[in-house]
């Protein structure tokens, strides 16, 4: 019952307003009820999960299937820069690339979103104009999440005010690992509310949660709390998006939709650098949750260097020969 002592915790009447979707509307009624629910989810056998993704990794995606996969993957990229050294110039250059990833080929699709820190969301918004490309901003004291809830909420509101239409928040891993699941839940609910019309992606930082059982539980917390997407990682912690983690999170969104009717998106981020990695993820989606998720509205790649490898492979398919790093643009 630690949340009772937490000055940031919502009062009981507020908690009633943020009840999860049926049939899960009463699982957050107390800390112990929520713990019982989360620990009652079926366990994940790590060896089995690894074997499954290894088997799917042998899928051979060639010719027309590969061409489709590459274009689809490009259209799912959240082109990301999250550096202390980011400047308006850097963001504008990234935005230009997002609109026209391959200057030599107008048929190349644009990416899904540009992902920046909240203070640069306005720059991205302006540079992207009416391209249809979203502006995603990381917030809530990204990447560590170590700040008071008031600061996190302010961070979110600031990013939204600057023009972000997608917010990538981090969960409080400290609270999660110390068993305060309801605190994690309530914070996501509060952030979701602060987002207003902006979509909320909830970053679990699976590299810090370590076990696949934890990944499954955190996924459910985020989905129950109203997150629109669940996302693996900040990209600042290693390991980031591994295939077994993606498998477990995809199973979570699949099961959640089956139970509640609400579809949640999934975004692996960090560590996906090659076309091969991206295709493996598309295969994983295709055979775990099906075609409903093979769409930028429901699936994103959080990546920076991935795009150029996709472009190189795309050129290779088109021309029949490999070019090189000078044939794609630096950001």
């Amino acid at each position, binding site marked *: 019952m630690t949340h009772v002592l937490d000055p940031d915790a919502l009062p009981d009447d507020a908690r009633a307003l943020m009840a999860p979707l049926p049939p899960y509307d009463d699982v957050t009624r107390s800390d112990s009820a929520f713990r019982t629910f989360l620990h009652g989810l*079926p*366990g*994940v*056998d790590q*060896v*089995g*999960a690894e*074997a*499954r993704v290894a088997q799917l990794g*042998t*899928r*051979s*995606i*060639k*010719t*027309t*299937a*590969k061409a*489709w*996969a590459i274009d*689809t993957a490009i259209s799912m990229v959240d082109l990301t820069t999250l550096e202390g050294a980011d400047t308006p110039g850097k963001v504008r250059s990234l935005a230009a690339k997002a609109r026209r990833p391959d200057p030599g080929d107008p048929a190349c699709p644009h990416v899904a979103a540009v992902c920046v820190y909240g203070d640069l969301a306005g720059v991205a918004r302006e540079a992207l104009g009416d391209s249809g490309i979203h502006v995603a901003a990381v917030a809530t004291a990204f990447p560590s999440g170590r700040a008071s809830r008031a600061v996190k909420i302010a961070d979110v509101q600031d990013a939204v005010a600057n023009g972000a239409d997608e917010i990538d928040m981090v969960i409080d891993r400290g609270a999660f690992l110390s068993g305060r699941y309801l605190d994690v839940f309530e914070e996501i609910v509060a952030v979701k509310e602060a987002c207003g019309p902006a979509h909320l992606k909830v970053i679990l930082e699976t590299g810090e949660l370590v076990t696949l059982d934890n990944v499954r539980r955190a996924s459910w917390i985020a989905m129950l709390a109203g997150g629109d997407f669940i996302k693996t990682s900040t990209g600042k912690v290693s390991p980031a998006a591994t295939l077994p983690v993606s498998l477990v999170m995809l*199973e979570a969104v699949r099961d959640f939709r089956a139970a509640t009717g609400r579809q949640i998106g999934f975004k692996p981020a960090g560590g996906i650098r090659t076309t091969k990695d991206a295709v493996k993820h*598309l*295969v994983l989606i*295709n*055979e775990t949750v*099906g*075609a409903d998720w*093979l769409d930028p509205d429901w699936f994103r790649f959080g990546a920076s260097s991935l795009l150029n490898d996709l472009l190189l492979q795309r050129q290779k398919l088109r021309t029949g020969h490999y070019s090189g790093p000078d044939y794609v643009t630096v950001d």
Partner: protein
Amino acid sequence: MSVFEYAPAPESRSIVDIQPSYGLFIDGEFVDGTGEAFKSVNPATEEVLTEVSAGSEADVDRAVTAARRAFTRVWGPMRPADRGKYLFRIARLLQERAREFAVLESLDNGKPIRESRDVDVPLAAAHFFYYAGWADKLDHAGLGTSPRPLGVAGQVIPWNFPLLMLAWKVAPALAAGNTVVLKPAETTPLSALLFAEVCQQADLPPGVVNIVTGAGETGRAVVEHRDVDKVAFTGSTEVGKSIARAVAGTHKSLTLELGGKAANIVFDDAPIDQAVEGIVQGIFFNQGHVCCAGSRLLVQESIHDEVIASLQRRIGTLRVGDPLDKNTDIGAINSAEQLARIKELSDYGETEGATRWQPACDLPDRGYWFPPTIFTDVSPAHRIAREEVFGPVLSVLTFRTPDEAVAKANNSTYGLSAGIWSEKGSRILKVANQLRAGVVWANTFNKFDPTSPFGGYKQSGYGREGGRHGLTAYLKGADRP
């Protein structure tokens, strides 16, 4: 229809060079058999691949004579370390020619290339590597003070894992100092004949390995030959029984690895998603042509509906079709005869009141095909719950308590393998101890390793293959480990 259609990704056939006809491999060379030749077909297309000699009784006699001579003069007296060198050489050649073996195996057997490439061939090589290491350590294997080879081993193997079963038989026999006469299955002789080429390539002394192709009559001649010291058989329980009768009262020692009707037990505290994978792997691996297949799913009643729904969704993603396509999960049924048996038992299942479910899937027009199938509402009295189908057909039964699970699992004339799915370690250990099955997998299924013994209880046979235990079947004066 998915938006993400995988384009065909066929493995090239050009790496294999199938000759128009094959003779028998006796005393180090290919010779014509005197029996009537028979055809080997590709079960995925019904295309005739080649013509193969059938070994007559006289041919088998020549093979056994060659094996005896090689045992007495060359292989028996050879320094064990040198025998090991030959086995290492064979293992390396299997690896070097892995793709060739995989393609040939898929062509002749109908199994998907993903399995022949990732399971059959690497495991076959691993068996040779493993037993190669034992060749010069037999005195120190804890099998008695000076175990000695038995002599000539007559080996008859099935069609479901043609090369792998050859490796399971040949590798320990040779490591222990025996010579062999091996009869591959009638419908899948080609990888064994390619293995004969590998023996030549490895300069294995003539007569150490002899391969006599043919059908049941040829097998009978091998088993009943008076100069065979050891009979090893993997195949149906029916044939196993007749072999046991034929061998009874002779000096021959015998190991039998026969049928099974394994229970795959899923408790309510199981990791459900992985259990569903394990159920699929247990019954649909190799089209269910697996003696240790998890063909009886015992699922706790409280999670029955959830598990079946997940299982059906998962089965819907299985890709059935061209065995040579790298994305195929389920290939062709090995023969028209086997397909007829699967159909007969499945139809019987419906007659007896079980409910059949099959996914919507397009099957090729030619060849032998059967879609992945599950039967729910199966009672232990139904034939599909008791008899081995040896095809992609799963019978689902339920239980309420661990005791009932054990009782139902053990209620079989077979006892080859079983699976347990639970996140509770103490339950796994307790139930595993109560199951009368030679192999019990926990939170996995159909996993094989050369270091692990394999074999059955009851009508699943006797003797163990694999591991240190596997050596005892080929040694005199060996205590069981």
